[in-house]
């Protein structure tokens, strides 16, 4: 049984570049591997700790308690427009932000730490950053019950909840694109690993996580609009917290924007794919 040419795995492979889409399909064929690697990540993360998986619930809860304490007693906020209760507002944005920033930071090292796999086992390298994004997505999901419990407690259940999955999807596509780009770049420029934490810090303040998009002066808003995470975070705030989807035109713009980010990131990754085995 001769395998088809350019199968991407075994069989005849030519010098000619395998098209981008074929590689994407190959990733789909490796979904079982992606799935088991995500499960492995999650298992390995809590292996050996007494509370195990409970940490995925406890951590966001503790985070929420800290915000509540800080913003109720240490520096009470002045009840800015549409951000009350502030701790909950903050939590709504910080959960998805954590998913994004943890994914980007982990992906800057993933090809290097997983170098052994790339060099010794035949499998598509993009599996590694994808696993990073998905396992952080699972963490995000595990934090959601806490978020929803408090949203319900404060009576913040809105019809706009139906937009929530769409925003998650936008963020997923965007995060994948950024992570593929960063992971490939970090193979050639190890500097990326050092700078990334600061870049993410800047990005954090450049996204309306700790402040409300609506309270910013338009002159600054103009710049923040270039940041896709701005609109994604606002999407979470509006669909879960305020219950008004006034930001929907921007979210429509994000559909092509996140797709383009993904394609650019994947194209870059694909271009450098063959250098990984030699460089990591």
């Amino acid at each position: 049984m001769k395998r088809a040419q350019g199968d991407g795995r075994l069989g005849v492979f030519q010098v000619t570049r395998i098209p981008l889409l074929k590689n994407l399909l190959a990733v789909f064929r490796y979904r079982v591997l992606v799935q088991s690697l995500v499960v492995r990540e999650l298992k390995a993360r809590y292996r050996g700790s007494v509370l195990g998986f409970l940490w995925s619930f406890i951590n966001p809860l503790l985070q929420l308690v800290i915000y509540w304490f800080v913003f109720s007693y240490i520096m009470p906020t002045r009840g800015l427009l549409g951000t009350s209760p502030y701790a909950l507002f903050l939590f709504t944005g910080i959960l998805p932000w954590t998913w994004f920033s943890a994914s980007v930071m982990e992906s800057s090292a993933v090809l290097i730490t997983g170098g052994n796999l790339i060099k010794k086992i035949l499998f598509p390298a993009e599996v590694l950053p994808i696993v990073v994004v998905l396992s952080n997505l699972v963490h995000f999901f595990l934090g959601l019950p806490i978020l929803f419990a408090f949203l319900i407690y404060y009576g913040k259940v809105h019809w706009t909840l139906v937009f929530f999955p769409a925003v998650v999807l936008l963020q997923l596509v965007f995060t994948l694109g950024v992570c593929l780009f960063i992971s490939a770049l970090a193979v050639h420029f190890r500097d990326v690993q050092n700078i990334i934490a600061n870049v993410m810090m800047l990005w954090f303040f450049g996204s309306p996580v700790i402040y409300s998009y609506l309270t910013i002066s338009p002159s600054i808003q103009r710049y923040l609009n270039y940041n896709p995470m701005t609109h994604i975070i606002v999407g979470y705030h509006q669909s879960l917290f305020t219950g008004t989807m006034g930001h929907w035109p921007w979210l429509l713009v994000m559909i092509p924007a996140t797709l383009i980010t993904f394609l650019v990131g994947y194209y870059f990754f694909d271009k450098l794919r063959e250098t990984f085995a030699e460089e990591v």
Partner: protein
Amino acid sequence: MTTAIQVSDVTKVYQRYSHRKQFRTLKSALLGGSLLSDLRPDERFPALSGVTFNVRHGSTFAIIGRNGSGKSTLLKVISGIAKPDSGTVSVDGRISALIELGAGFHPEITGRENIFINGIMLGLTKREIEDRFDAIVEFAELEEFIDAPVKTYSSGMYMRLGFAVAIHVDPDVLIIDEVLAVGDEAFVHKCLDKISEFRRRNKTILLVTHSLGLVEKMADEALWIDKSEVQLRGDPKKVVDAYLARVSQHEEKALVAAEERAVAEFDAPESANEPETPVSEIEPTSAFAREKGRWGSREVEIQDVSLRGAEDSADGRGKHIFSTGESVTVCLNIKSTGTIKDFVFGVAIFNADGICCYGTNTDLEDFKPVTLSGEGEVRFVIPKLQLIEGTYFLDVAAHQRDGYPFDYHRALHQFRVQSRVKDVGVYRPSHQWEFTPNIVMRPPDPSS
């Protein structure tokens, strides 16, 4: 017979990035707008050039060569981990590559979970792994530990598990890269048995190993790569012999260089320097204090020492690699400053452990010195070299009968003995085996 693996004119060039670019920062690359162009290499060296061969279905094919000759790259190209820069590779059937055992193991999770993930990485479905799970655990002999995290495993256990998973992929083509060097004796036997079973079941095996005995024993065909090119391909015995001959050449060169360095280092006459320990005769000194050295008054100087085989004429440069049983002549070119009436010549052979295999001198063998003047040659002829395989050092000396040294060379000269027989000991007495007719043994293959 159909072809299982076909490699046609495969070239693989590795790329080296210059230091200048390595130290360049991302910032400058971005600012200069040269991000993609910076990722281009500026130094290239070939790992494989124009490699062509094919492997028949169901045969065992061995690849041999020195370290860095391109063997592992070739396996990576065949298994698809690396892509050739030009040429094509086609493989018929499922491959399992034992390039590094347990490469995908995660230390924090259990052996059981790792078997599943490793199996999936190697191309099995969950169902297939479930079916083979017990066989894998049994083969790895890890029944007790399968639910313990892999980080608690010993390195042997780790390797066993890796081998067990890889071998149970049940590939049509099995690629083995020098992984049999791991594990204890019993496990190696088990692996070899498993490989033999593969051969019986008519699967194709591609083997890279430095164990030439294994190549001669198992392979149907062998390929020798050196300096990224195919040197020879064909009958394993023939290929192994050609490879060994080349290895000898290289060793010869290395020995010559080592000797030249040693002689040059101690060349300056040190007549003022008395030996630290008086040398009364050439006796095996302490095995622990055998440092290279040269001393003596040089009234008689040993100008040159060479070793010659049977086929070398007297004017030959000599050689440094001999086979057990070969004839060896140690030639000492000597020169005396005046007419000397009291002199002894001695030779001793030490093995790499510093043990004296043999030492003698003309005085011990009752030669009576009469006169020596000018230049001459002393030849110490060993008709049959009865030493086992290894590296040997030579002490040669000219001194007076009371031990006063003229010129003493300690361990400045070395040679290597090769043998196909891996016997042990200090020397190899001529011997033969005889059996009464009720003991039936097949004699060794006369060609080896």
